[in-house]
């Protein structure tokens, strides 16, 4: 079970209210509302096609919702939300440093060199700065992918299936990195269908199925409310919870 961390501030940094999105006949997201506190690590879990990526893309301003609002609050509310897509969205023909420098310029960061250097250090890729991205391992590419999302020092970072293509060692490094971000006050929202990962790392989980928000609480509470038998793990508890909710 995850250690429950206390968010560092009472005021939420992100407020999602009544967000909905329809693609043709399919309602991808239905009237979803929740808040994210500063420094909180929030997992959005659900089966495939639950609407996790759509919800993240609405929060990240990639897609427009049919209804509802997404608001940022707090001292850095004017800053853009950081977004890290499921697949690495960086240029494989450029070096690590060139990628960071390009996106830092496009984000119009104040101190370009210092920002790039900071991100290289945070991602532990300083020695690989001049390597072409295509020559890096999947884990390192994902670190650059996340670093690009973090360049503008966003108050909220969205991660879509961040560890999907990584081996256990790379995954551990990645989570150490993300945990470090939350400790510095960044709110992180990540979507995953890996329930054990959500249980291990998230402060709070949202359960989404068929676009509907079914649960908002800690992993421990989800386990206890799932109706799972004692001794059953989180994944079994999650399946039991969905079944109980008619999914």
């Amino acid at each position, binding site marked *: 079970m995850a250690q429950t961390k206390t968010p560092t501030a009472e005021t939420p940094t992100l407020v999602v209210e009544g967000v909905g999105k329809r693609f043709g006949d399919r309602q991808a997201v239905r009237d979803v509302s929740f808040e994210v506190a500063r420094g909180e690590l929030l997992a959005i879990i659900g089966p495939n096609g639950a609407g996790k990526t759509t919800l993240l*893309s609405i929060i*990240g*301003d*990639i897609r427009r919702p049919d209804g509802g609002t997404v608001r940022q609050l707090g001292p850095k509310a004017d800053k*853009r939300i950081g*977004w890290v*897509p499921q*697949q*690495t*969205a*960086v*240029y*494989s*023909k*450029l070096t690590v440093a*060139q990628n960071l420098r*390009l*996106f830092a*310029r*496009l*984000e119009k960061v104040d101190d370009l060199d210092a920002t790039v250097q900071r991100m290289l250090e945070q991602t532990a890729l300083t020695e690989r700065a001049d390597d*072409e991205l295509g020559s890096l391992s999947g884990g390192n590419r994902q670190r650059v992918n996340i670093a*690009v999302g973090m360049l503008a020092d966003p108050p909220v970072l969205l991660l879509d299936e961040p560890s999907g293509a990584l081996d256990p060692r790379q995954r551990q490094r990645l989570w150490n990195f993300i945990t470090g971000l939350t400790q510095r006050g960044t709110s992180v929202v990540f979507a995953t269908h890996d329930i054990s990962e959500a249980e291990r790392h998230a402060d709070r989980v949202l359960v989404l199925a068929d676009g509907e928000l079914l649960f908002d609480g800690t992993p421990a509470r989800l386990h206890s409310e799932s109706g799972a038998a004692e001794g059953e793990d989180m994944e079994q508890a999650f399946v039991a919870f969905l079944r109980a909710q008619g999914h």
Partner: protein
Amino acid sequence: MRWLLLKDMQILWRSKLLLGLLIVYPIAIATLMGLALSSGPDKPRVAFLNQVPENRSTISLGSEKIDVSTYTDKLFTQIDRVDVPNRSQALAKVKSGAVLAALVIPSDFTSKLSNSGLTGASVEVIYNGDALKQSFVRNTINSTLAQAEAELAKQVNRLASGYIDVILEGGSINIIGAKLKLLGLTAAKDLVDSVLADDPRPATRRRLLPVQDFATLAVANIGLAKSVLNTVERPVVVENTVLSGRRTPLDAFAVAVAVTISLMFVCVLLASGLLALEREENTFARLARGLVPGGQLITAKVVLSAGCAFLVSLVMLVGISAFVPLDWGRAWMWVLALAGGALAFAALGVAIGSLAREVRAASLLAFLLSLPLAFLALVPSGGVSPALYDVIRVISAVFPFKPALGALDGALNGSSPGLGQSLAHLAALIAVFGVAARAGLRRFA
């Protein structure tokens, strides 16, 4: 936008194969084009067997003899002659591919020519090789034979005209070594006229009047026979009058076509690939989150690909000018035409790129679309039915190849419809394809 341009240039710089092609391509194409346009094809190697005995190489026309070898020698100004001693050797050389054809002049060539005239004699040509080579050799031999025939006909004409002059005005001719003096029709008529004037007896007049009439008519009309002979020697005289349309020499037009095709491929492939790359690398969604407006993204791709293609085609033109004379006084027009064409092709490229999710798919789509459109634009009026040509004209007007070719042809050669009209056409296409690309990006955002 400059950072996007810088990024794309860095990507191009790191794509060694693509960069190498961009540098090597214009140089190679310019050299090949220049060499092809500035040097004619090699003479075809043709085996030659003359079976006419040396002592029978002349034909007799009246009292004069013509040496046929004078005319057969003219054949070899356009043919690489390989003498063979007999027909089997000629066949063997053709079969082995040592020569493309064999030309055999049979032993009875001169006797037939003497007895039956120009239509009675024949020569044999034996071909081998593929259809293209056969066609090349056949055309070469036919044209050189026609030239030799024309030379022979000229000689015959000259002799015949001489005889007509003797018949008309009188003179001497050689018949089997004997020199005969002829009175001539004019003198004969004068004699008849004087006899009739001196002797007005009705019987004499009755008998001589038809002779006088014949002589009068003959004197008046036999000169026409020379004109008839001249007509046979050169039946049709072609006088060229161009009312409108192209006045460009073929090689100068070929330069415009080659450079426009290169401009099109470099531009369309690069622009479509650069835009599709944003999808393939998943960076499009990241850029579209307010980092780079769609219009700027499209403009950056258009500017970079048009710039690269412009340089490539300009290098090509300069390279070709070393082989084919181009008017450097019109160089500023080349620049305008290339720039207009490059921007229009780049706009088409980004429109294609906005439809594809991968660079490979975009390149394939660009290639499949561009090549047939270029061929369509080159279909001449009259080459197909009028209705089909109207359809082709409409299709060609919707895509940049034809106006780009028109602009470059106008810039290089001053041909119609002219640079200004073509540039206006290209500007309209840039706007249309730019809007289409923007719509394509929105659809996939």
